[in-house]
């Protein structure tokens, strides 16, 4: 039994935390928050690129560090703690994983080294309207290497150079890579509840598109597998945010005095924070299991990823809203960081499928498993 990260991975975590606490402060996040023209914090982004983290789980033959998925999980949690205002997840969790999973050798050789060294930034363009994503709801279509349709919102769609786009092809769907600076692509920024990560509406009008090397019409199945992998990584990012919320609320509850004593001495606050702790630990244990399944390509990945995602979405949501509540009126001011976590919690909870979607995936996986 070794259900924990290795000493090397813990060392990476400690180093990443030190680095990010110094290089990605609240001021760096707020620079993006307060400036509508900023899609991300490029100063922070360039430093992260230099660290090589984007290539943590990209094999060395494709220009990465070739560490592994567990190392990427560790980095994801640390990025989540500091609300890193950069397109890391879009590029490393979804775009790169899609290419790793479904790209041909030529496609991997073309794009993965560029993701790893930051010379391209990827994103995932799937959503077109309200409601859960399904193959039948996709209107964007591709034919003969040309793609047309509108995707919104595309997380990090402003800063990305390339997108993995879900499109109809024939009676099925396909996953296409589109260069966003090419002809037939126009984009505009969207106002969202989470301004520290940019979001775009992207219109494709006969844009040149390269289909990933999966079977024709099979895009949705490939996307499901990409989502399972991204879900575990997102779960760690969410876990980082949830952990930070508990720390913030605990620190404040010890300092803030009311009725002659710290508010953290009252059971209404103590039990609230204990509830956050319990949800965070449930999320952590489920995330670890997802990490194990991800790193070993286990058959249990579908239920492990779904459970990690459901637990982490609940934990971050609960921690972020009760962190505001614990801070009282101060927690509802622009100047205090609580709302940044509340915003990010909701983005991460819905960005790759809402909790309801993942609960359904989880139960379906359990049914499949029990039927076998």
């Amino acid at each position, binding site marked *: *039994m*070794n*259900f*924990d*990260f290795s000493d090397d991975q813990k060392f990476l975590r400690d180093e990443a935390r030190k680095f990010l606490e110094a290089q990605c402060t609240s001021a760096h996040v707020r620079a993006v928050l307060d400036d509508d023209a900023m899609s991300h914090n490029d100063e922070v982004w360039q430093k992260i690129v230099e660290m090589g983290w984007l290539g943590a789980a990209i094999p060395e033959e494709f220009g990465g560090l070739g560490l592994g998925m*567990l190392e990427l999980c560790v980095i994801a949690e640390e990025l989540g703690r500091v609300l890193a205002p950069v397109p890391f997840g879009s590029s490393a969790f979804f775009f790169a994983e899609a290419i790793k999973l479904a790209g041909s050798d030529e496609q991997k050789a073309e794009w993965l080294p560029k993701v790893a060294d930051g010379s391209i930034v990827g994103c995932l363009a799937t959503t077109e309207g309200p409601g859960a994503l399904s193959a039948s709801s996709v209107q964007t279509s591709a034919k003969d290497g040309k793609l047309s349709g509108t995707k919104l919102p595309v997380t990090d769609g402003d800063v990305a150079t390339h997108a993995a786009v879900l499109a109809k092809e024939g009676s099925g769907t396909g996953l296409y890579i589109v260069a966003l600076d090419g002809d037939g692509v126009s984009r505009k920024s969207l106002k969202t509840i989470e301004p520290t990560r940019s979001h775009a509406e992207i219109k494709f009008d006969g844009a040149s598109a390269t289909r990933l090397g999966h079977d024709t019409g099979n895009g949705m199945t490939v996307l499901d597998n990409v989502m399972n992998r991204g879900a575990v990584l997102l779960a760690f990012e969410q876990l980082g945010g949830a952990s930070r919320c*508990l720390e913030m609320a*605990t620190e404040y*509850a*010890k300092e803030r005095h009311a009725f002659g*004593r*710290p508010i*953290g*001495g009252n*059971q209404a*606050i*103590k*039990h609230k*924070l*204990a*509830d956050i*702790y*319990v949800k965070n*630990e*449930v*999320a*952590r*244990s*489920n995330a*670890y*299991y997802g*990490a*194990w399944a991800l*790193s*070993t390509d286990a058959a249990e990945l579908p*239920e492990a990823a*779904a*459970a990690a995602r*459901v*637990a982490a979405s*609940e934990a971050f949501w609960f921690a972020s809203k009760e962190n505001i509540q614990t801070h009282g009126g101060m927690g509802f001011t622009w100047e205090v960081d609580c709302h940044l976590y509340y915003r990010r919690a909701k983005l991460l909870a819905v960005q790759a499928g809402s909790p*309801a979607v*993942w*609960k*359904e995936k*989880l*139960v379906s996986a*359990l*049914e499949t498993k*029990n039927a076998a």
Partner: protein
Amino acid sequence: MDFTDSTEEAAFRAEANAFLSQHLEPKKAAAIRSGRRDDYLQRAKDWQKVKAENQFAQITWPKEIGGRGGSSMQQVIWNQEEGKFDAPTGPFAIGLGMCVPTVIAFGSDEHKQRYVQKALFGEEIWCQLFSEPAAGSDVAGLKTKAVKDGDDWVINGQKVWTSGAHYSDYGIVLVRTDPDVPKHKGLTMFIVDMKQEGVDVRPIHQASGGSEFNEVYFTDVRIPDSDRLGEPGMGWKVALVTLMNERLAVGGSPGPDWAEIMDYARGSGSMSDAAFRAKLADWYVAAQGYKLTKFRTQTALSKGETPGPENSIGKVITANHLQDICNSAIEMQDHYGIISDKDHAPADAIFQESFMWAPGLRIAGGTDEILKNIIAERVLGLPQDVRVDKDKPFSAF
């Protein structure tokens, strides 16, 4: 990351499993509390004897006192393996888990020689007498008193929620020996012979209908001073040693879980209900969260490290979780769900029985509220609750 045993762990697990297979039947799915056969107590004593004879009774105890001299990790492996079998362990859990370790820690050499082996080999059963009608969560507020009379102490008062008192031979009892000092400082611990004059054990008729717990009345019960554990007035410190293991002992798997309600739902057509499916996902996540958190603890033990505080989430999750699942299972059965007669009720009435047991589980071994206080104070470092009686003589209240 991996879930495999080390070579030594695998060898011990195989040895334990082989031993268990030789002596016991595998446990049926969703073992339930009721329906214990009349000979349960005798079977438990027999099984305890067999375990002790083969050094499986207390894995971590030193060999000199009948243990195996093994590691905490080996104890975890033993518990996991024994849990797969229909092992009658109930009557010895409190005695060997809590009372006898207290005797070992604070008793004289005579005590150890007299009591430890007999408990280990299943010849004598122990109970723990702490809680009182007016002292539950605040157990240091207990009122049962002991007054020195020559070489004896004379005990009067009442204990409550004493598991297994009706079949116990000995107990450890926490009493007040000095009411004129603050409550934690006036307590003393004794060994008490449960079969002696003046000890009156009365079963509690629980809300669940069963009677696993008792009230115990002490009327002029004499205990020799030589059966005192620790100095007079040091009883609270002795009790903390006893209680250290309680929450781990109580936090086990208590009844039907997501797999059982999913089985029922598949048979009854409820899997098509979207609201049920969402709840099923939540139950799976919680159950996995609890199970996997124990794996994290186990990992620390396996590496010889001290486990982190994450283990404290156990009973807060499991008790509410059980209650929620049973409530939903009954509502899924609609009006029919009230039937607890096993001839009619689905799944041998496990949901109805655990529904009635669940409220007790949320209280036993630390209420939800006390456990949350402990997480808040000891894990998160928040201030203690206001304790107005902390520094004043007990008799002032």
